[in-house]
């Protein structure tokens, strides 16, 4: 990592006049450094490929890595250094809690920022002009799940259960609203207490209400127990949950009862045949393209480069304008941004979960 930064610094020195610098901000050290690596290898790959193809409007791109250790305080210090070094474009930060305070500084100082990993809806909800993201929001999963239920599953009677926390209740509310719009009978909308172990009373109630589909907004420890106790009591219903339930632990807790559960997860971009070339390029460099943030980071750099071309300017405000009014072909699909700076449609994919923790995709 030091060698890369030094190299970037050295080349920067040599051709300082023409280069367009992009700050790559994220954790190089600290407990979530492996996520930072995903972001850096994706961004660097994009920079290398764009430079090899002739750069942007005659200039070369140059990535400069900044380490925020996923610490909000350090993220602010990093943001100030980026301001001092007169860098106008940032790809980062990674953790929502770091992105939030850093983005205040970028917006004030006229720096364009695209995060490839922060999914908190708050970040783009403050009416900022220069803050974008190339990843989905926590709040997008609900509508995806709701549409899928309404169009494909078509259940007769649905129960929507959540864990009363920001993430779970938010998604569950979105699912309920979509189902109601589609005239599907939501017989029950109810919260449970995260950390509870006994859901037998709730399950008896679901059985009495005769529901054939249950959506759960929350995490795997509670849904695992609900699945297990539902199987025990003989409740015949299909269960569905967000990405917070889609990990191997749910199969350990629920065992056979986790077979056939539906779950929404971000698309696996490295499995897309269109990206086969890119995957080979990563493998040639001995890098792992399967990380969740590799392709969104690649897309972030590409969007900045294309934005500069379209605006024919390196002024962040012109580029931001170009980002909002155009759409971009990237390895993560055709991207276009809304007023807030979020992607207009980021696809979550519906998977069917199996008792051995494997999954099969059910939707595009």
């Amino acid at each position: 990592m030091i060698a890369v930064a030094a190299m970037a610094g050295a080349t920067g020195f040599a051709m300082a006049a023409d280069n367009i610098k992009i700050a790559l901000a994220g954790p190089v050290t600290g407990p979530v450094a492996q996520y930072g690596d995903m972001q850096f290898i994706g961004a660097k790959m994009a920079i290398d490929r764009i430079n090899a193809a002739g750069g942007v409007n005659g200039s070369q791109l140059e990535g400069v890595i900044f380490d925020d250790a996923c610490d909000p305080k350090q993220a602010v210090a990093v943001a100030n250094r980026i301001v001092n070094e007169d860098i106008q474009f940032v790809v980062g930060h990674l953790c929502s809690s770091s992105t939030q305070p850093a983005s205040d500084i970028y917006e004030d100082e006229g720096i364009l920022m695209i995060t490839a990993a922060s999914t908190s809806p708050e970040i783009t909800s403050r009416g900022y002009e220069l803050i974008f993201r190339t990843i989905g929001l926590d709040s997008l999963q609900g509508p995806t799940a709701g549409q899928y239920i309404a169009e494909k599953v078509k259940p007769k009677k649905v129960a929507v259960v959540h864990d009363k926390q920001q993430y779970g209740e938010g998604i569950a509310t979105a699912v309920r609203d979509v189902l109601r719009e589609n005239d599907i009978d939501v017989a029950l909308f109810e919260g449970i207490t995260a950390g509870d172990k006994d859901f037998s009373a709730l399950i008896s109630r679901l059985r009495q209400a005769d529901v054939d589909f249950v959506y759960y907004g929350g995490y795997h420890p509670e849904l695992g127990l609900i699945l297990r106790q539902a199987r025990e009591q003989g409740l015949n219903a299909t269960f569905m949950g967000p990405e917070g339930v889609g990990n191997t632990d749910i199969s350990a807790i629920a065992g056979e009862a986790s077979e056939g559960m539906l779950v929404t997860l971000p698309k696996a971009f490295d499995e897309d045949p269109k990206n086969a070339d890119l995957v080979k390029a990563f493998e040639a460099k001995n890098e792992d393209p399967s990380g969740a943030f590799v392709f969104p980071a690649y897309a972030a750099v590409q969007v900045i480069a294309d934005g500069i071309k379209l605006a024919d300017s390196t002024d962040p405000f012109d580029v931001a304008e170009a980002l909002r009014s155009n759409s971009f072909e990237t390895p993560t699909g055709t991207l276009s941004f809304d007023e807030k700076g979020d992607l207009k449609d980021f696809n979550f994919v519906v998977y069917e979960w199996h008792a051995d923790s494997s999954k099969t995709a059910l939707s595009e």
Partner: protein
Amino acid sequence: MPDSLYYFVQQLLNGLTVGSTYALIAIGYTMVYGIIGMINFAHGEVYMIGSYIAFISIAALAMFGIEFLPLMIIGTFIISMIVTSAYGYSIERVAYRPLRGGNRLIPLISAIGMSIFLQNLVRLAQGSRDIAMPNLIPGGINIGPPEGFSATLSYMQMIIFAVTLISMTLLTLFITRSRMGRACRACAEDLKMTNLLGINTNGIIALTFVIGAALAAVAGVLLGMYYGVVNPYIGFMAGLKAFTAAVLGGIGSIPGAVLGGLLLGVTEAMTAGYFSSEYKDVVAFSLLILVLLFRPSGILGRPEVEKV
């Protein structure tokens, strides 16, 4: 109409199952309070340790080739009760006995410290993720018509009722009929006087911690097998609920702890079943406040007589 009756029966069974285990844990609080007037806040963690020991011994017994289910379950109960009792004894010896006779707040702080220590010890030794095991005794019986709503009673629930009933009967016999039980009652009556009469009160106090821990281990094994999941944080909520049950029934009274546990479990199930899961805890704790307003010493508790 019968449908709603079976539904009521189902919720009653759900509530009694949870309530039985609250009662088992509540005994530990109420016995210790009855004798030394102290709340053992580490008791929830003792239950958690009992559950972990159950998981470990089931895995160990299976490893040694003991696959015969009744033997495996009885073995698990014995191992977990012995190891957990050792924990209960050690906690009393290390954290409470040296502080006895001082300010009443000091052992309370020591208990909270012990609770944090045990939780983190297990977290470091076993990891903080949920550990799961498959359902050992699947299946159950249906009560009611095949069409429409029928109440289900799983074999595991039956075992919980049976084991709780047996434990409570044995405990009552021990307290009312044995010499040591009489010594326990004497200690609860007046600790200093009992000591003057030549009874080893330190031994009796240690014994109450051991009995409490053994019953918490029984609850730990039962709930571990019933839910199939254990993590280092289950002790906190279970401890809080059991403590509530003990206070509700009248802290210091053993039948009170049982009644309080069952009442709390059934109230929770009925609230979740007829109203909403969200208000389960609200209703349960409102009930506690109401009982304490009208009967400050709990349902079966005796009013505290100021000793002069």
